[in-house]
């Protein structure tokens, strides 16, 4: 786009440019979300059927009511505990398997087909089989979610382990760097971007699977609530719980994952 000379053009890097950039970085997502709410309002108005397509204000009012009664927080809390437990297990096991497959050729040749099998196994199948084999208990729920996520983490970390720089490994060997130090300063920083990618996609996937697990076999949690509301065609309740949980997950992303990632990437130019 051509600009006339003399027209005020804020340059990137100047204070005004920076605040303008920041403004744009915040303004566009906010506008985009407002547009989504407006679209929802429009659809609700067109549908003219508040029970099946409640407007945003009704869903918000419902959220407040559920929060006041305490039900919202109790179910959110239980679901969150399940998400965190299966997330931690899936990351720990997946990282270990991924590094093994990325470093040991035989393990990769042997374990590769297993990985493909589990990657393609539908989540619903592992959930149902876990409940049948282990019983309708918490262990089965968390196990089923972890089994669903482990292959994704392993595949990502396998790439990371393959990309480890052999030149740095040689350096550490010549200088006799003890292996715990090697792991902490040489290996893990190289894997950090892969761990971050796995964590991010992991959180998004896991909380969705947890809801299915709860719907199929737990007596509480957001998924259980949604199943109950489903039986009464209570769309406002379904949306209230779903939005509340989206907000929680987004808070974890902004408040925890992104700051950690920024800290890890501090050394980059």
């Amino acid at each position, binding site marked *: 786009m051509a600009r006339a000379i003399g027209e005020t053009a804020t340059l990137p890097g100047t204070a005004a440019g920076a605040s303008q950039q920041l403004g744009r970085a915040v303004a566009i997502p906010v506008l985009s979300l407002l547009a989504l709410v407006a679209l929802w309002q429009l659809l609700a108005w067109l549908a003219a059927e508040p029970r099946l397509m409640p407007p945003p204000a009704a869903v918000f009012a419902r959220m407040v009511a559920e929060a006041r009664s305490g039900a919202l927080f109790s179910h959110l809390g239980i679901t969150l505990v399940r998400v965190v437990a299966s997330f931690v297990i899936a990351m720990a096991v997946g990282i270990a398997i991924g590094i093994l497959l990325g470093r040991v050729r035989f393990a990769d040749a042997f374990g590769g087909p297993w990985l493909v099998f589990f990657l393609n196994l539908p989540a619903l199948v592992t959930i149902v089989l876990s409940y049948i084999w282990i019983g309708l208990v918490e262990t089965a729920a968390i196990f089923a979610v972890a089994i669903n996520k482990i292959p994704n983490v392993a595949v990502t970390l396998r790439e990371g382990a393959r990309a480890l720089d052999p*030149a740095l490994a040689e350096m*550490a*060997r*010549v200088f*006799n760097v003890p292996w715990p130090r090697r792991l902490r300063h040489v290996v893990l920083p190289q894997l950090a971007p892969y761990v971050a990618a796995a964590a991010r996609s992991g959180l998004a996937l896991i909380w969705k699977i947890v809801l299915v697990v709860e719907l199929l076999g737990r007596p509480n949690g957001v998924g259980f609530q949604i199943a109950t509301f489903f039986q009464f065609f209570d769309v406002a309740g379904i949306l209230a719980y779903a939005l509340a949980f989206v907000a929680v997950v987004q808070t974890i992303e902004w408040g925890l994952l992104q700051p950690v990632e920024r800290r890890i990437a501090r050394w980059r130019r």
Partner: protein
Amino acid sequence: MAALRVAIEEKRFPAVGAAPEKHVLGRVHFAAAAGETVAITGPSGCGKTTLLNIVAGLDGDFRGHVERPPSGRIGYVFQEPRLLPWRTVADNLRLVLAGSREEQEQRIARILAEVGLADARDVFASRLSLGMARRVAIARAFVIEPELLLLDEPFVSLDTPTARRMRLLLLELLAAHRPTTLFVTHDLREAVTVADRILVLSHPPAEIVADIAVPLSREARSDESAVEEFRLRLGDFARLLEREGTSA
């Protein structure tokens, strides 16, 4: 008594895919006295880096024998600096140091002062210029007080004045710390400046074709014209290196 004894009979790299097997090193026998600096030069591709990796113990797949100093304290300055970009200069040095935290800090401060990088202590290695990164790599090799120091063309791709400053810095560090040193270079001027002795390798399978003593004083080594004069006396070898280098 020799601090380093190298007796390589043969080193081959096996065929990989379409690339045929390579017979890199033939019979390479030499020894270095404690504190001696030996330059190794030869046409490009003659296996100089391979020789260093064997001496360092990184490559065990060869026929022959290497006797290293018993302490196992080996400093290696690679062709690329090989620093951890996600750690600071001080942390890069701390990585290779044993001992108490206090002792580590003292050694780090001392070596950084010696290489003129005291101010860069807390800078991430990713932010260093190539010349500074090279100096940190040299500091890392010296900070462990190595008994055996291996340098693989540590000044390659630096501009001429920087390379000259680095040669003089290395000369000072060698005089102060006295490790037994193998210094690989394709630049005779560099070899003459730094080394007590120059070994010239032939085209692969490489063997030692000359073992030249460099009887220059400290002062003469920091004098460019004296170095150039000595290098010219080695004219035949220089031509050999150039001819073989271009045909490689």
